[in-house]
């Protein structure tokens, strides 16, 4: 899938993919049957994985960024080195029992930012040490325990990520 795309729209990443695939093809042609078979299986697995061109909605490198008070709100920022997914569903920030899906989504210079807007009177009820999660869509109720949510994050890392604990510094900014 990616290769077909590459032939149509050139990019450095695509060029590297084509280069490595060409090397494999060269070895297959110039090897004995057993080696060819191994290469074939390896290449097949490569192509199958490649064909997916999957896209995780929650970036695995997401981190908590700035937390600032602006007027009656606290703006709680999540950063990622790539743009966040743009789709139908919503990102949800969970801190303790607080869940919010009100945010601005921006991507500048290839980096993604989600800025969640939390009313001050809600944010002030949060406590240091509460767990912070980011999910794409709503996956758990308030009844879910921390262990439940951690399981969800581990099992579907493309949909939910644990971002650490709420620190005193974040809380009192």
């Amino acid at each position, binding site marked *: 899938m990616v290769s077909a795309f590459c032939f149509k729209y050139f990019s450095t990443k695509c060029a590297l993919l084509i280069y490595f695939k060409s090397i494999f093809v060269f070895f297959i042609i110039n090897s004995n049957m057993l080696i060819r078979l191994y290469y074939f299986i390896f290449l097949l697995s490569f192509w199958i994985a490649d064909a*997916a*061109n*999957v896209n995780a909605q929650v970036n695995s490198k997401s981190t908590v960024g700035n937390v600032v008070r602006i007027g009656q709100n606290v703006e709680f920022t999540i950063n990622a080195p790539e743009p966040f997914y*743009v789709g*139908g569903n919503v990102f949800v920030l969970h801190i303790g029992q607080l869940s919010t899906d009100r945010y601005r989504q921006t991507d500048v210079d290839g980096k993604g930012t989600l800025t969640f807007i939390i009313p001050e009177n809600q944010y002030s009820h949060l406590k240091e040490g509460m767990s912070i999660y980011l999910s794409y869509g709503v*996956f758990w*109720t308030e009844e879910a325990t921390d262990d439940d949510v951690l399981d969800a994050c581990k099992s*579907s890392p493309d949909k939910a990520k644990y971002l650490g604990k709420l620190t005193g510094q974040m809380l009192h900014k």
Partner: protein
Amino acid sequence: MTFNKTIFWGFACTILLVCTQYNYGIAQSTPDPGLPGTYVVAKDTFDLGELAYKPDSFPNFVELRGSVHYPASLTGGPFPVIVLLHGRHTTTYKTSTPGTTALSWPPAAGYQSIISFDGYDYFARTMASHGYIVISVSANAINAADASLSDRGMNARGQLVQKHLDMWNGYNTVGGAPFGTKFVGKLDMKRIGTMGHSRGGEGVVYNALLNKSLGSPYGIKAVLTLAPVDFYRKKLNGIPLLNIAPYCDGDVSDMQGVHFYDDTRYNDATDTAPKHSVLIMGANHNYFNTVWTPGSYIAGGSDDWGSTTDPFCSVAKLGNGRLDTTKQKAAFNAYGSAFFRMYVGGDTSFAPILEVDDIYPPVSSKLDTTQVYISYHPGKNKRRDINRIDTLVNTSINTLSGAVTSKGLFSSSICGGGLTIPLCNVSTALAKEPHRGTATIKGLAQMSLRWNNDTDYYQNEIPVAYQNTTMYQSLSFRTTVNYKETTPVGRDLDFTVQLIDSNGKSSTQVVSNYSGALFYQPGTQFNILPKTMFNTVKIPLIKFKGIDQSKLKYVRFLFNKPDSGSILVTDIALVGNVKPCGIIDAKFKDSLDKSYTVYFSDSTIKNAQDSLVWKWKFGDLASGASDSSILQHPSHKFSGPGSFNVCLYVFAYRTTGLVCKDTFCKTIVLVPNSIHEQNLSYLNIIPNPAQNYIIVNGVLSGDQFELRNLYGQTVLKVVNIQDRIDIPNNLANGVYIAVIHTKQGSSVQKVILER
């Protein structure tokens, strides 16, 4: 040798593929809606500017841009109109490195817009080839800025579609740039269908509600939501709706769009608009749009099913159930075309597909029967609800006030959300429950039935008043396997439907002969799969041989297939192509003269636009050809004394054909010595049936009472009626004729003696 092996394995695989298809007993031949039509198609694009329109509800200006597909010759119009609205997707890409995208509007320097509206061209071509004008609308500006809005841009999407309808109404009436007069008189603005994908799905629902609120300036006849979000749970009644849910949706992974179907079922008691839901197994969110499909467009495409570990939805897993991009588009193309051509174009030949009478997918959809499942909720005028399973009371009393009983069930309970019904889902399993409610919004109330013995059953009684079911064609219900209580994991289920009439005769049909809905829904992705997606099972009543359909007393689910399992059930109903309107009310009064001639008078009140047809059957076979009549108020000279079952059938026709029918039957008894009867309706005999006495209400001093048997013999006579008339013990049970002689005349009434 190699050639022979190839042939062998090819043959073996072919046999295997053929044999793994379900073989249902209701194969029908329905036209294929996905095939191209006869019109040559042309396409134009239009672009009135990136910041050409300011919706009231949106902070920014938005673009007025899109494409139009149409029959190239434009002769023979006006043509019905379809409007397509894409969903939320990244909006621009960097021209020098298309892999770099940016969510902004208008495009920054060095960036170009992503033309999401172009992604449904394959569908637009199909529809235009059948004589539709298809307009696809760009909504990038809304996508770029809706994240922080409290309505997520839904009002703006509704207004944007309305703005395009206004624009095209202008092109249709006076013309204008960039089309000049090309489309003047070519669009039928009273026959419009709208389709929205993802956030566009909720957007077209908002638009239909907006159009209604404006007095319906445009005739929106059908709304299709494709893998939609439903954040705000707006209810659209009165317009046929189709929701398409892709099972491997990695974006809207809780498939929340099914609420558009669920929430509107019983929301409006007068709603005659049907609702449909199509579940496509193996389809993801993005591949319906070619611009969002990797390899088909320069930037931004992806497979939204991000996980690589699920055995069914992850393409990385060998033997997965995913559809490739071609199949996924073909599936939407076929079902979308069927829906719009039926409800916008009026072509009812596709009804069997959408109404679950023909569960074989159209060939052009490239699906088999294990890859597509449909729910169908007929309009009010085409169904009689037996048990909506809509409140907690429905565990013991159904919608018809009949008793709900069971035998041996391990458990039976109702869940579904809302303030009075407990939630079905808990903790982290929300995305597995697309039909779910919340603490404050009711979801799909559903009955959980768990059995562990093959004699267990669940039964709904039909009260006497509703037992005549001859005007209905099918028994229908929605169901799914309850994966939480079914072992072993992955086990498909089945059960038997048993209908029992009031004479005690019964007949059975096995669900799996009509539907594959009781399959264990696949996948193991933690907190997302498997799901409980309900699908309709519909069994023709004619298949239940040997029962009297005019006296249907019980609908029983007999769990005698696998001897243990758990299912969820809702929406148990009788469904028909024609149902009494409620306005047509076939009843008649009759009067008698001394020569056994009875004068009948029908009291049906009809709709103004209907024309009525009457058909009488007097139940007097001895009278030969005169035993029937097509007059509204006929008379019939009966062949002699006796008991006759007289039936009146009333049919209502509109320009579209038969819309309603109703039946009324009454037994009349003619005694040998006929009495000229007066209409003395104030005379009333109670109790009736009687045991040892009767009381005649309304009599005056001096009135006389006479009781005759069916041979006309007087068996009891009372000269001066007192409060109570005792009935002699020697009178046998049966029908008698009571004659009450008053100064105003005589009244004849039937009395049943039953002791």
